[in-house]
């Protein structure tokens, strides 16, 4: 990194802050704060959907996946493309939810199954969600650490825990300030800017990688470096059928019911726009996996398969510092930091408003004013920020970040997908069945590496196997309990 690169990074961060703060006082209404008053059009929806979904974390874990699994990891992107396109064509789930004009998935739970399901659903959503984002801050800090290490060649910096903690605190303060002062309008502004800058940064990084390593040489080198060439390309050889099936499930749920994605869909102007947005976003969903995976593969070749500093996550940022020219590196680092902010503000806003809207508000009788809800959400944002700092410092699981994200997300989505699919498309689905399915999702916690290893019965299972079992378990609970305990009165939805 040169002084010019630092200048670009600083200018960029200051500009994003300025824009966010400039528009902060416009978020005086809770509906604006949460879903931008449902005024987002198709183009802005497509741009900001990628802005939210293509965060620094996404780039980092996908680069790590590419570094570990090579081209075989592209199947994750392929599934994301196919599934998102399918949602765009059929409108499954998302259009129905938009037609109901709900602000969040737990709101749907209440309309279909009653208040208890809404509160339990929101609690589980928040447990899964905040566990899921628990490592975001740490991963962001590892990126900065990797860039600084490659720039200054300071070997101790690569492994220093205290430096990592300091970077985490600086990043956290930046994100909290921005999110608390803004709201969904500010989130949309940063998401848009991030979509533009990060897209340019990624396209350039891919082009420079191909220019440096040579398109055909990438494949040739990889086949020399990896002992089993078949595993480079074949996902079934590389990770097995359970893993591949699990990726299909993850592709489906991350597009259809993951709150940050669905919140964007619910803020669109009309149900028809929702379908179009998913159709166009399908390419973005492919790219957000494929480009970073490719950069991870290039980093593997560049370093001849060696892992420097014992951390595979750090390899992609170090690689970028070495290959990108002055100026482009500055843009890329700035874009990654903005991506970090954009993902955090989207997630913090999403979880805090769900806690306020779907747990605190119903419990307190639904009489909170918009101003009170916004203030409560802001306090929760600070608490969540402190939690991710704590969790990033204490959690020491060894699974890859993508595996961690999949299994923590499963705590929420395995139950939620059963409740939503059956709730929307099966008349006999009952509130007791919904409660049982949601609670069944908790069994995904067994897939977390420290828990899995501590229980001998599950220690031999892979996270994806536990995830698939949890999904099947929740579906069965939904069907069985709905048949045994049907609702007494018919619901309209």
């Amino acid at each position, binding site marked *: 990194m040169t002084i010019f690169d630092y200048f670009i990074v600083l200018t960029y961060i200051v500009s994003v802050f300025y824009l966010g703060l400039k*528009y902060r006082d*416009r978020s005086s209404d809770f509906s*604006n704060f949460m879903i*931008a*008053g449902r*005024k*987002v*059009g*198709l*183009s*802005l929806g*497509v*741009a*900001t959907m990628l802005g939210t979904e293509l965060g620094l974390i996404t780039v980092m874990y996908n680069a790590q996946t590419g570094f570990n699994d090579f*081209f*075989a990891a*592209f199947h994750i*992107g*392929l599934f994301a*493309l196919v599934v998102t396109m399918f949602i765009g064509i059929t409108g499954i789930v998302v259009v129905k939810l938009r037609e109901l004009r709900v602000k969040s998935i737990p709101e749907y739970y209440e309309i279909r199954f009653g208040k208890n399901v809404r509160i339990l659903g929101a609690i589980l959503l928040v447990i899964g969600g905040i566990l899921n984002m628990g490592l975001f801050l740490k991963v962001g800090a590892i990126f900065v650490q990797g860039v600084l290490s490659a720039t200054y060649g300071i070997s101790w910096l690569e492994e220093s825990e205290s430096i990592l903690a300091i970077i985490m605190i600086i990043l956290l303060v930046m994100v909290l300030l921005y999110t608390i002062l803004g709201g969904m*309008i500010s989130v*949309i*502004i940063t998401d*848009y800017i991030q*979509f*533009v800058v990060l*897209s340019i940064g990624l*396209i350039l990084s*891919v082009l420079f990688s191909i220019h440096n390593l040579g398109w055909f040489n990438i*494949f040739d080198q990889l086949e020399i470096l990896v002992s089993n*060439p*078949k595993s*480079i*390309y*074949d*996902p079934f050889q590389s990770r097995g059928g359970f893993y591949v099936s699990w990726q299909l499930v993850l592709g489906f749920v991350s597009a259809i019911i993951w709150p940050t994605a669905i919140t964007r869909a619910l803020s669109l102007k009309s149900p028809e726009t929702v379908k179009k947005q998913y159709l*166009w976003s399908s*390419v*973005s969903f*492919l*790219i957000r996996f*494929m480009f970073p995976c*490719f950069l991870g593969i290039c980093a593997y070749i560049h370093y001849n398969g060696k892992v420097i500093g014992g951390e595979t996550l750090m390899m992609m940022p170090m690689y970028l510092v070495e290959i990108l020219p002055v100026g482009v590196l500055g843009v890329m680092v700035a874009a990654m930091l903005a991506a970090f902010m954009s993902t955090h503000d989207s997630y913090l806003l999403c979880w805090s408003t769900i806690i306020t809207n779907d747990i605190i508000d119903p419990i307190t009788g639904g009489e909170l004013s918009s101003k009170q809800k916004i203030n409560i959400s802001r306090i929760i944002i600070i608490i969540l920020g402190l939690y991710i700092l704590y969790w990033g410092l204490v959690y020491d699981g060894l699974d890859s970040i993508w595996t961690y994200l999949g299994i923590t997300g499963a705590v929420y989505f395995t139950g939620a997908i059963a409740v939503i699919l059956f709730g929307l498309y099966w008349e006999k689905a009952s509130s007791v069945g919904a409660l049982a399915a949601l609670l069944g999702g908790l069994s995904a916690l067994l897939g977390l590496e420290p828990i899995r290893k501590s229980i001998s019965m599950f220690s031999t299972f892979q996270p994806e196997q536990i995830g698939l079992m949890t999904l099947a378990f929740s579906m069965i609970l939904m069907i069985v309990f709905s048949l045994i305990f049907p609702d007494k009165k018919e619901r309209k939805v």
Partner: protein
Amino acid sequence: MIVWKLIWQLLFVIGFLSFNLIFIFFSIKGYRELKELLKGNYEK
């Protein structure tokens, strides 16, 4: 192995080209919509 290799190469090239087009189109149209959204929100 060769089939998988070809699939990923094809997917990468098509994905790269279509993303470039999508990026140009939606960044321009998205900017216009963002301006409208901010303007409307301000006037409200």
